[in-house]
């Protein structure tokens, strides 16, 4: 019983990391495709392109953060694993879902917005600020997901 509880909690951490990471990977990939097209025409814009390409990368970090918090809470990182009940473990797994799922979708769609924004930057490099902000609008929901995950993980009594 004790072992399967740890396994469920780890599953929560894993879901958080891999869905967030997948969303970012897709998003950064999409933006990168568009960015490579831009720098083939205007290599001097590399810095700005890189900035916008990096934007959909935050979901991966949020997911990583969610996973890490769970690992810390259950004491897997250095030290003795906590004596976890199966109920608590499931709570931790559910707590991971907000950041995981919002991270997946917002990462994908932020990538699309970033890719489109890069086209605007290609036309006029002055647009970089506006492109960044538009991409950041999508990120809001991953931030909110992270917020709830963090609050939940902190408030679950181990």
């Amino acid at each position, binding site marked *: 019983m004790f072992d399967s509880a740890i396994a469920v909690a780890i599953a929560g951490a894993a879901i958080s990391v891999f869905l967030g990471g997948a969303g970012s990977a897709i998003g950064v990939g999409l933006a990168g495709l568009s960015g490579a097209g831009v720098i083939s025409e205007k290599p001097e814009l590399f810095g700005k392109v890189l*900035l916008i390409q*990096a*934007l959909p*990368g*935050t979901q991966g*970090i*949020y997911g*990583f*953060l969610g996973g*890490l*918090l769970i690992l*810390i809470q259950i004491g897997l*990182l*250095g030290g003795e694993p906590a004596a976890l009940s199966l109920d608590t473990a499931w709570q931790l797994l559910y707590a991971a879902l907000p950041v995981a799922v919002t991270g997946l979708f917002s990462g994908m769609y932020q990538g699309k917005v970033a890719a489109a924004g890069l086209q605007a930057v290609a036309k006029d490099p002055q647009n970089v*600020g*506006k492109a*960044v*902000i538009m991409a*950041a*609008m999508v*990120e*809001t929901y991953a*931030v*909110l997901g*992270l*917020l709830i995950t*963090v*609050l939940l993980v*902190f*408030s679950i009594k181990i």
Partner: protein
Amino acid sequence: MAVIAMQKVQILGMKKDLPQILTTLQKKGVVQIVDVIGTENLKEIDPPDHKADYDIANIDFALTFLKNHATKRPIWAGKPTLTAESALGILNSFDYETVVKECQELEEKHNKNLNKFTSLENEETILEKWKNLPFELSTPKETETVRLFIGTLPTTEFETLRKELHNISNLSDVHRVSEDTTFSLVVVTISKNSIDEAKLVLGKCKFAEVELPKHDMSTAKRLETIEAEKTNIKADLEEQEKEFIRLAQDYENLQIVHDIFLWQQDEKHARELLRGTAYSFIITGWIPKDEKVKLEEALEKISSNIAIQAIEPEKDEETPILLRNRKAAWPFESVTRLYGLPMAHEVDPTPFLAGFFIVFFALCLTDAGYGLLLFVIMFAALKFFNLPHESKGLIKLLMWGGLVTMVAGVLFGGYFGLTPEQAPGFLVGEDGNFRFQLINATSGTGPLTFLILALVFGIVHVLFGKLLDGFWKIKQGQYLDAVLDSFLWVFFILSILGFGLSSSGMVIPADYANIFKWLTLGGVVAMILTQGRSQKSIIGKFGLGVLSLYGLVGYLGDVLSYSRLMALGLGTGIIAFAMNTIAGLAIDMIPYVGFIFAIIVLILGHTMNLVLSALGAFIHSARLQFVEFFGKFMEGGGTEFKPFRRQCKYIIIQ
């Protein structure tokens, strides 16, 4: 500290003074020249020649050509910085035309040499294989009786070829020059009598003829001459390298001259907007009102026949926007500009967003260590780097952001994500917590306190935006709109908040609940009665009034949006903590050299976290301004004031 008031003016004068007037205007850089309107009977001023365009193109070529040979300016030195006088002096004394011409000649010579060298190398690779060819390269391929084939064939076919050719005619000969496992290079001699059959055999054996370069010497001899020619070209190229370096010494001068021609090009574009008669001219433009007198004085010095008169802008003509802010608020213009400029009749949001922006930025980081780092780096950049004026704003913004982040970090107990046990002793008080720490965001009720703090900031920010809207409307004389669209909303939201807080007994005593209840109800009635006042029918007025209550949902959404401050602030600390944990694991798990890995993890990890978190903090603080705050009082969309001035690409004019 505001959107600067603009005046549209006409400058009238005599054509003989025009060059001097344009120079003065460009030097002052306070007038944006626009099309002259309503003067169909006036002619265009003779457009000047296109010499500047031509010069700029030439110098651009020389700059690209010499780029790799110019001495690199160290990164902190920035662009060459000088006064306009010394720049113009260089234009007079520096013979840029010769330099450009020499660059063009050098390019031609250089390319010729490079091409020659490549073709020699190609020839060498081919001839290398034919080194043992037993006759001169220019030997004719046929005589009256004999035809010579030079070419390659698969080594496996060689014996077949020899036998079959021998069968056709014993006058034929196959000589192998060289071979490897796949191909043989051969010379085939065939009597012309049997040439047709021989050709069939050659085809069968997959023989491919090769065209060798013609020279009156043996292959070996030719290879020697190629080597000699290559050496010559190399010497030539080295010579040209010196030439490159010599010309590149003028790189900076070329940049300076380039920018002066850029001014001349701008002047030409400005001239295209002027109109005039045979002897006089008209310039139409926009000028900041407070600069007009100074410009008048400057122009009077040129001639007494110059007049500046204020004119009315056309209907629907957009006034260009110039923002001017005090020293402290000025760096925040970079945030406003990110969104776009306000319209001429709107308020400049820069001074009002400054405080909020920097506090939000700090809350998104909340780490004293990161704040200190950011402050020191940006301070050093300002101190030791020669930056153009425009980039200084952002750097200053980040520097002050770093400072406020330090304060926030101390209040939240964030020091590179260290726990009190890991932190150096002087930071930790006697009770085992950080000194001066007010909120511990990662334990107990800390996260909730942080969240509430973020939302309170949100309420203050949003209501401040609405109040700003009201006061600006009063300033514009729209008293009714100010009261009903702005102040009524603020009153309504505050009374709902008061009712909520007092009825649950938080912050405000429960005794006041009744008062707030009536205030809220009053607010509801006032909203329903007034918010639909633009509608014509009674039902329309009433319906829109009821519908306006739905606007509350928007405000709720706005305020909740500020929860990101807490999420980002926590995120920075937790990632920093994670980096420390990973570094700690490296020390524990890797014997002896673990600390090296730990140091690498700490440096890379914290750098990455600082960069990404600062970027996120900037973006999200900016977003809160643009979406939640600006939406309350401005639309934006103003066009920038672009004065006719000495703009530079490569240099900075002091």
